[in-house]
């Protein structure tokens, strides 16, 4: 019996890793032919295999940093203000929206709009308590730092650390489905922010950032896939994410190889990568992705 499980794990691991590695060696990122992993196999993915999938809680911070560098003015219209934490009843909704609001918090912090982040913080606390992870969110300290605006670095540290700890705790306690939802929420809101801004400010850096999400989306779908059949809510979300994946299918990401340049500066090592990734995406493809991102995100935020 044990032998069968070991054999099965090996087959799944080989499938997973062969899919992930194959396309990159040819200098281009393409979605695996079989759309990641067949659901029946994904459901049996080991914790170790799932650990090998990217989990990026802080991606909206990076997007907000790009917007800041582009001098894009702050706007509250990008925020998911319509989320009412006290009206959400299912763990599914709470975890997903915890992620969405986490992305909004990163955006607010990056623009130092810490005074206006109190409402978002209050909702985050409610949602975190609602799925029994409120102990990782040091609400009082984060609120105090937000109100006096004295230490943005500490604010980022505490906020991001809280989310990382929640993610880790959920996975360790066998509640990986909620962690996957939270990550999906973070990603969707970050994607919404980037695509809404790129409509008005078609900067190459931001356009490329949107195109590169093809890589992250693939990993996100692998995280979600074990739960896609567990309820109608998950099924609908997976379907929406699959639709998004289809919009990305023809966007090309190619790679060129180079040798890193290294030097020592003030006792630290400084490395500049000379490998390059390049995104080939037409204006029409970008438009389709903007529309799809808006549709999915708004549907989830409104709860319809």
């Amino acid at each position, binding site marked *: 019996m044990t032998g069968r499980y070991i054999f099965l794990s090996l087959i799944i691991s080989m499938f997973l890793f062969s899919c992930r590695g194959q396309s990159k060696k040819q200098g281009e990122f393409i979605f695996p032919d079989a759309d990641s992993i067949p659901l029946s196999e994904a459901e049996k993915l080991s914790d170790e295999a799932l650990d090998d999938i990217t*989990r990026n809680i802080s991606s909206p*911070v*990076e997007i907000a940093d790009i917007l800041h560098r582009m001098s894009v003015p702050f706007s509250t219209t990008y925020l998911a203000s319509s989320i009412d934490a006290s009206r959400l009843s299912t763990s599914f909704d709470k975890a997903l929206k915890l992620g969405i609001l986490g992305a909004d918090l990163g955006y607010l912090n990056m623009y130092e709009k810490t005074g206006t982040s109190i409402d978002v913080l209050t909702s985050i606390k409610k949602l975190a308590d609602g799925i029994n992870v409120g102990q990782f969110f040091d609400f009082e300290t984060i609120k105090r730092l937000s109100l006096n605006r004295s230490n943005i*670095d500490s604010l*980022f540290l505490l906020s991001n650390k809280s989310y990382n700890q929640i993610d880790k705790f959920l996975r360790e306690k066998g509640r990986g489905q909620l962690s996957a939802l939270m990550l999906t929420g973070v990603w969707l809101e970050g994607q919404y922010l980037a695509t809404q801004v790129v409509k008005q400010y078609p900067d190459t850096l931001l356009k490329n*950032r949107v195109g590169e999400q093809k*890589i992250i989306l693939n990993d996100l779908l692998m995280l979600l896939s074990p739960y896609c059949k567990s309820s109608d809510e998950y099924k609908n979300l997976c379907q929406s994410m699959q639709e998004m994946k289809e919009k990305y299918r023809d966007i090309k990401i190619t790679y060129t*190889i180079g040798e890193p340049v290294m030097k020592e500066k003030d006792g630290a*090592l400084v490395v500049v990568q000379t*490998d390059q990734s390049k995104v080939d995406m037409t204006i029409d493809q970008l438009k389709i992705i903007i529309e799809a991102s808006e549709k999915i995100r708004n549907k989830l935020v409104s709860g319809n």
Partner: protein
Amino acid sequence: MKRFILFLTLLLTFTVLASAQSTDALVSKCAMTAGPNTTYLKDFRVQLGPGGHQTEFRYKQVFPLSKNMKYKFTLCSADNSKGALIMKISDETGRQVLASYDQKTGKAYPSVEFTCNKTGTYHLYFDFLNFSQGSGVGVVSLVK
């Protein structure tokens, strides 16, 4: 007997909590040493025993890095560690992108600033110098 079990349980709980708190303090301290122009993104908490005749880094994680972003990896070891925390990064094809130590000289850098030009999923490997015993944290920050 009941008292002894209760005592052991309390001792174990206290030890676990104390360890978690000290790691947490190390994360905060390490994130702050990254510098004023950085934003904390994620930390990796590493705790390893003696490596013996180990040749491969023992702690592995994945993390996405994006083109046109500058990252700083800050490595901090707890006082009771037998060697400094070191790291190396490979891309998804297995090509090494950077290492925080010089294998020839044995020099270990406490931080590495990395300008990324290829978006992708990277493998981050951590261990302690000479595969020794230790605990520490690796903090990834965004350089503004």
